[in-house]
């Protein structure tokens, strides 16, 4: 599952939007945030199936039983619709964007750091929600987010989400921490044993901490940092560098770092914690956290639009969404995927799937762009390129 590491990312700054937009699902422009995007029409009506559909997906999202006989939700789809599914595994968000631009694919399971780029680049089309009846079952917290919902139009059908949690070794860390200060402050009792995430997007984690502890900086969204705010976040990351045992980019390295005792506390995912098992625990600290969320997006000019829409609705129905999210290790987007069996209920409990209070404190990964997505218009915000350069300076 190393894909996540190198890339991952997902989504939305939508908390702001949700706060402003209230309970209407499409609060996309409620705070006046508009994005200049190419005008691409949504698919009109469902027609005859073309016989195939080409999908770029994270591992575990499109399974036909060849990896694991128990994970198969493609065979039945093909039998029902006559659409053969050609899957291409995406290794990183950046690679997925590049692949989508080749024009060879109909669908992509885009994370939030890819989706805005695809929308702005004119590579994906808005979704005709009438053709995705199961969209109505999705949890409120995943609808109308900025990463897939621009200028009042939906560009994505949510699949699932997860938070970046504070993971710790229960033997080494006796009192469970409730703040991220154990990974950021020089007086941390775990200095030298802290694991940190190795990606420019980790700058947002520093921003979340500063948002809470340095309100004077005026950060209201960790993905909308002007250059002063970015400098402050980078300063915090450089301070952390001397406390860090190692940076992890690969999922497996997080696991082995905790197992080998190299690290005892640091940022992680629920699915990693599940692998570690007994002796390890995780919390969502008071400052909140970053997180990721993935959505299906359809190409601007799909070769197989009808099969693509059939897949969109097929994979969004409760049983299939439950299978995907349990196979991958994330909270399902469809609320009904949390019902029907003890297994489904237990899974959703672990991942807080329908707990909007939990996710209200989670800032989903989203691509930082020059236009401030917190609505400020008097400053220029820093782009992801600038974040990447800043990240190189953190590691020196």
């Amino acid at each position, binding site marked *: 599952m190393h894909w996540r590491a190198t890339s991952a990312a997902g989504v939305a700054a939508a908390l702001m939007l949700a706060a402003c937009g209230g309970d209407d699902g499409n609060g996309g422009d409620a705070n006046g945030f508009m994005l200049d995007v190419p005008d691409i029409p949504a698919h009109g009506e469902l027609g005859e199936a073309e016989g195939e559909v080409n999908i770029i997906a994270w591992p575990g999202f499109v399974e036909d039983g060849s990896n694991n006989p128990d994970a198969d939700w493609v065979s039945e789809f093909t039998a029902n619709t006559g659409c053969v599914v050609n899957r291409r595994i995406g290794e990183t968000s950046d690679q997925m964007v590049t692949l989508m631009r080749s024009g060879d694919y109909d669908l992509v399971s885009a994370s939030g750091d890819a989706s*805005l*780029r695809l929308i*702005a680049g004119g590579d994906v089309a808005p979704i005709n929600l009438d053709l995705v009846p199961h969209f109505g079952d999705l949890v409120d917290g995943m609808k109308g987010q900025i990463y897939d919902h621009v200028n009042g139009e939906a560009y994505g059908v949510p699949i699932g989400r997860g938070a970046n949690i504070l993971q710790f070794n229960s033997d080494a860390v006796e009192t469970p921490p409730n703040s991220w200060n154990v990974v950021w402050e020089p007086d941390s009792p775990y200095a030298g044993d802290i694991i940190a995430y*190795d990606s420019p997007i980790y700058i947002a984690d520093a921003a979340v901490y500063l948002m809470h502890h340095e309100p004077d900086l005026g950060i209201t969204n960790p993905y909308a940092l002007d250059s002063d705010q970015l400098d402050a976040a980078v300063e915090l990351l450089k301070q952390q560098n001397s406390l860090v045992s190692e940076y992890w980019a690969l999922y497996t390295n997080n696991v082995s770092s905790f197992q*080998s*005792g*190299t690290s005892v506390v640091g940022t992680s995912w629920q699915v990693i914690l599940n692998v570690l098992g007994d002796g390890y625990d995780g919390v969502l600290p008071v400052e909140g956290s970053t997180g990721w969320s993935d959505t299906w997006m359809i190409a601007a000019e799909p070769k197989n639009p009808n099969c693509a829409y059939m897949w969109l609705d097929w994979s969004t129905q409760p049983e299939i969404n439950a299978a995907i999210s349990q196979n991958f290790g994330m909270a399902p987007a469809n609320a009904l995927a949390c019902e029907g069996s003890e297994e489904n209920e237990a899974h959703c409990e672990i991942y807080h799937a329908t707990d909007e209070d939990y996710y209200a404190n989670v800032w989903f990964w989203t691509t930082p762009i020059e236009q401030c997505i917190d609505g400020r218009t008097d400053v220029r915000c820093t782009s*992801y390129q*600038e974040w990447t350069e800043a990240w*190189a300076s953190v590691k020196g």
Partner: protein
Amino acid sequence: MHDMRRPTAHRLSTALHARPRLRLYGLLSLPLLWMFGVYLVSLAMLLVTAFWTTDPFTSKVIPGFTTRNFENILTTSSYLNTAGRTVGIAFLVTLLCAVFALPLGIFMAKVASARWRNFLAMAITLPLWAGYLVKVFAMRISFGENGPVNWLLDPFGLSGPGYGLPAVVLTLTYLWFPFMALPVYTAIRQIPPNLFDAASDLGAGTWRVIRTVVLPLLMPAMIAGSVFTFSLSMGDFIGTQFVGAKVQMLGTVINQNVNLNPPLAAALSVIPIVAVGLYLFAVRRTGALKEL
């Protein structure tokens, strides 16, 4: 059908026989096409991209001409530090490989029995058969806090280096060692035994023989091996990811930019190209490239 083809084939071979140049070009055309079409053109494309820019939002590459990427690298201390660190690591790895390869090569070629020699040759080349990732992950496990390295050192009251710069150097040394050991071993085998006899007849001790006879004759092989160890170390980024902890190398920075900001990644990759180019240029004078 046979009879119909024969005259054509026959005519062709007669024509080729009469024109040796045509024959030569015909034979070379495929490798040359590969060399120029695939190898050099893609290298040129890379260099051209280094002068382009990227749309900050969509990450789409915009053709044009700007030296901004190079200015950026030359004025950013973290990039310069990383470049310096990478060259330093590559030198250290090369040095360690040479230091280990020399006694091993002498032992294998001049001391060991045929049985031992075959066993050692196999032991050196065997890791090349294993996947790169497997070897790197094995090194990660070895250097872990509760790993075998610390377990072995513990009885002596010592502990291993853990993840970080020393682990990166040792891991890369392990990975690229065969590329140094094999040419060195081959070169030592080729040294005529009577040179050793002559040297000891004239009163030279073991060390003096190594210093004045073996080393000078070995230089070309060592340099040939070092071209591999140096350039392979310059480009590595996965080993660093596994055992580097906080170490940043050029490869890791390029990897981070390769899809997001290809022009910057291209400009960064010019650094190892220049470093290896300079190294090859210096090495060319020694004549070692003939050994490759």
